[in-house]
């Protein structure tokens, strides 16, 4: 464990100066961010540097912060140096209007599907990705479902008439209209007509 968070921070500021910002250390993991056009430079530096050796991409995912102006979509990389056993978190923010960042597939083959997943759910356009298509959702889907503008249904709502799933609404419980097996007023006279 020769490498410490302090050293990583130092090396990063030495190399990139003012560009890398937002250093934090939460639950022992170093986190920082960089401008989106620099993500590949930073990843390459972390990969190639003889001392840093962050050569394992543990995780890549997106987060949507609708309130952060022009940095709505975050792409989060979790990197692992397996030799010194130290992890770090690297975040890149991109505006939701034009969510373009460079792909990391050239550095990590594992980024391929993880980037496709991030594209699938957040619409991040990974420039240079060999096959940027949806992976878990259907190809016909025309929106990015993990964005915060698509809230999940409120489980307490009662206005929904969905009696098949036990959601007739508590106000009208037991008075739901059913169409099968019931006889309307007009039909009443004709009931049993055939039997007569």
């Amino acid at each position, binding site marked *: 464990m020769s490498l410490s968070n302090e050293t990583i921070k130092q090396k990063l500021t030495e190399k990139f100066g003012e560009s890398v910002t937002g250093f934090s250390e939460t639950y022992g993991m170093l986190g920082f961010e960089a401008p989106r056009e620099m993500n590949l430079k930073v990843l390459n530096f972390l990969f190639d540097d003889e001392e840093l050796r962050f050569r394992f991409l543990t995780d890549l995912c997106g*987060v949507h912060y609708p309130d952060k102006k022009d940095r709505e979509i975050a792409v989060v990389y*979790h990197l692992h140096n397996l030799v010194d056993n130290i992890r770090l978190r690297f975040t890149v923010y991109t505006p939701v209007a034009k969510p373009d960042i460079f792909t990391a597939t050239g550095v990590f083959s594992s980024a391929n599907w993880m980037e496709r997943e991030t594209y699938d759910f957040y619409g991040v356009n990974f420039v240079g990705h060999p096959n940027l298509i949806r992976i878990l959702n259907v190809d016909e889907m025309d929106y990015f479902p993990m964005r915060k503008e698509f809230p999940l249904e409120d489980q307490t709502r009662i206005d929904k008439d969905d009696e098949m799933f036990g959601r007739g609404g508590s106000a009208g419980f037991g008075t739901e209209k059913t169409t099968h097996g019931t006889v309307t007023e007009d039909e009443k006279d004709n009931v049993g007509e055939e039997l007569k």
Partner: protein
Amino acid sequence: MADQHIKLPEGSIEKTTTTLNLGPTHPATHGVMQNIVELDGERIVSTEQTIGYIHRAFEKIAERRPLYQITPLTDRLNYCSSPINNMGWHITCEKLLGVQTPKRVDYLRVVIMELARISDHLICTSIMGVDAGAFTGFLYVMSYRELIYEIYEEICGSRLTTNIGRIGGFERNFNDIAFAKIDKFLAEYPKALKELESLLNRNRIFMDRTQGVGPISADRAMNYGFTGPNLRAAGVDYDVRVHSPYSSYEDFDFTIPVGTTGDSYDRYMVRIEEMWQSMSIIRQALDKLKQFTGAEAEVYHADVPEYYLPKKKDVYTKMEALIYHFKIIMGEVEMPAGEVYNSVEGGNGELGFYFVSDGGRTPYRLHFRRPCFIYYQAYEEMTKGSMLSDAIITMSSLNLIAGEMDA
């Protein structure tokens, strides 16, 4: 000649390769996934994977659920070893909330996680035998998966999707039947495992079918984000239990088996050896559990009333218990804002939880790092140029679980 009788439509280009669809439901895929294989004779030219058939949007659902309601979602990731997923999730929450678990809870967790690892590996190894044409070994070990499920049942009441444990510990102490069944398992399973090994390990047919099949170098495996037995088979001794110990794994003495070539045979051997190691860990954990005496021997959860559900009896009779019960059920626990990444060694590798909290009642964002999803993308590279039947056994040696892949 045959081609004289085949009338191709006007203007069509004659294709020299065959397209074969494996899946979404096919006996050889062991799950709901599709593989479009392009074949030249019996050799694979290219494969294309389609996944997502059982995508259930767990990450989205989790954004509206209090912590305790997310545990059942994790069950359904790798359903061959649900307890590991459950524990991984609890440990992530505990890390965020700053809950310290007592040693006894850690050891109980280790017991249940290692049992889950065995049940995961025994399926994978014996299914490899089935895919190579040796069905019998599968039956020998399968009855012990049943025994493991009975142990789960004694502890939490369910078998496959276990929803085991709570934040801070377990919902109840292990009973004597559970311990008796664990002892029975430890006494009888080695015999069955030896039998499986004697059927396959030095079996000429099995060796010919698996050695040199679907190999991946350590370098490529790491670049592809392999973890767990599949990475260790390639010769990299990375194990989350050792590198970032959780649940007091540092107290245990075990070795990490590694392979050399990263082929299907090595993956099989690594998993077999891990089962032996897991049994040794369970024995050590049981010994450690016996050392607790008096009140300590009854501890099965941390003393954190604000996160751990009180006993139902107390809810009806005590004011504080009722308040805590209400708060936990309504998801009103105090959650610090922050980001936490935590991982455990799942059956297939590093199962990670990236939890972004904004201090609200539910996670702001929860991402599961599913090992299957990440290493399945190497399948094309691993099978290129190999025979179709080798691709089948490569797939089963990777132990792909559709539930984990699709989340």
